[in-house]
């Protein structure tokens, strides 16, 4: 059974890329562009890992992460934030909200992200 990854991303182009590149790397991808749906989908699909954008049209990845962390079942699900926000305060807020790793998208090669995912969930 392939490992499941929930992608919370509202940029169409980015989502298409995640879907393609993660599928090719052997993962099953579930996705939503809606921040407030992230916790619900986590409950429903029990993903092995979550990729979280930060600036989303209906909210933000910080609140979505906090909501996911409130549920004991997804308290320890690895969450990787990938965003183009790069200030220390953004990174700190993401970590404080429960994100495990933070990447500034344009400063990170996609291959590095795949390597981190493999390290985290195999």
């Amino acid at each position, binding site marked *: 059974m392939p490992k499941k990854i929930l992608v919370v991303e509202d*940029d169409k*182009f*980015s989502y298409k*890329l995640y879907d393609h*590149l993660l599928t*090719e790397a052997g993962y099953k991808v579930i996705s939503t562009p809606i921040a407030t749906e992230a916790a619900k989908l986590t409950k429903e699909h029990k993903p092995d890992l979550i990729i979280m954008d930060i*600036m989303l049209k209906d909210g933000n990845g910080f609140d979505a992460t906090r909501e996911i962390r409130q549920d004991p079942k997804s308290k320890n699900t690895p969450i990787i934030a990938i*965003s*183009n*926000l*790069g*200030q*220390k305060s953004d990174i700190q807020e993401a970590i404080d909200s429960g994100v495990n790793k933070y990447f*500034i*998208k*344009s*400063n990170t*090669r*996609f*291959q*590095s992200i795949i390597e981190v995912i493999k390290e985290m969930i195999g």
Partner: protein
Amino acid sequence: MTKKNIDQQILIDSIGDGIMIVDRKGIIKNTNKAICDMLGYKSKDAMEGQVCLVFLGAIGEMGEVIDKKNAAFYRSIKYKKSIKDEKRQFIKQDGTRIWTNITTSPLKDSNKIIGAIIIIRDITKAKEHEEYHEDFAHNASHNLRSPIGNLLWVTEYLLTKKPGPLTVKQTEYLSDAYESLQSMNRLINNLLNISRLENKKIKPDFQKISLNKTINDVLKDLKFFAKAQRITIELNPTLKKEWYVKADDSHLHTIIQNLIENALRYGDQKTKVVLNIKKNRKNIIFSCQNKGLQIPKDKEKLIFAKFFRTKEAEERQNEGTGLGLYTSRELTILNNGKIWFKNTPNKTVTFYLELNSYN
């Protein structure tokens, strides 16, 4: 009150800036009307006799609580000199906050320092303006980085040849496109760093950082650029050992990236860029040497200046911005390090970065 005292009080009450006189312990001894108005106090009596730091809830620019150690008036008294243009937030009587610019000077009585005079100017409006620009830079950088990030990933993916084979020409064009995108991304990062450095918004987060890992991460990013420039990167055997420095992770990445990118940009084709690390007492020195353009003697002092590029560098490479070395120097200073260069033998130039080693 004597006639002289009354005249003095009239004088300080007539000044438009807020004035506060404190004793050596920071207890407010005298104020003027402007500061009462600024902070929303109806009378001077409500302020006088209070310990100014606690009473006014002073906060510095980085959000730090101002205590006796970092209080401007206290440093004025301790070092017997004026402290100018420090920015502080104070709590107003109605609970809101006000941004101020303060200048303090020691107050002398018969050559004995008895306290300090603090001049306070309301800069809340200017600060709001500054914050608006910061928000703008914050959002603009996000919006600029988003499409670049996507394009970098697509190009990276195509270059892996997983989606299908590429001809030699296609690979070459895509590599060029990838490099241009990375170059644009570095430019945005440098511009953002400069804007934040100049607004004193960057504070290093000192950690134990593996210099080797940072170098390797940078080399992965610059792989295509080195190939396009037809320059090989040689790692001195010293890089096989693990070297730890005390620095901010992202600042160190930017500095190393700028130095290596510079060496690749201005190095001659079919030459080497040589990276080395050595220890100097308690410090670690990273060096990056390239063969090619040397720095003219009369331009040596300008090499780290903002937007500066030598005429020779401009002729050779149109893509440089003159921001990389400036940003690197500013970030190095912030990380308690040193950065310098030397024209070295055989038409080489070597840049050095010295940082505190992490024990």
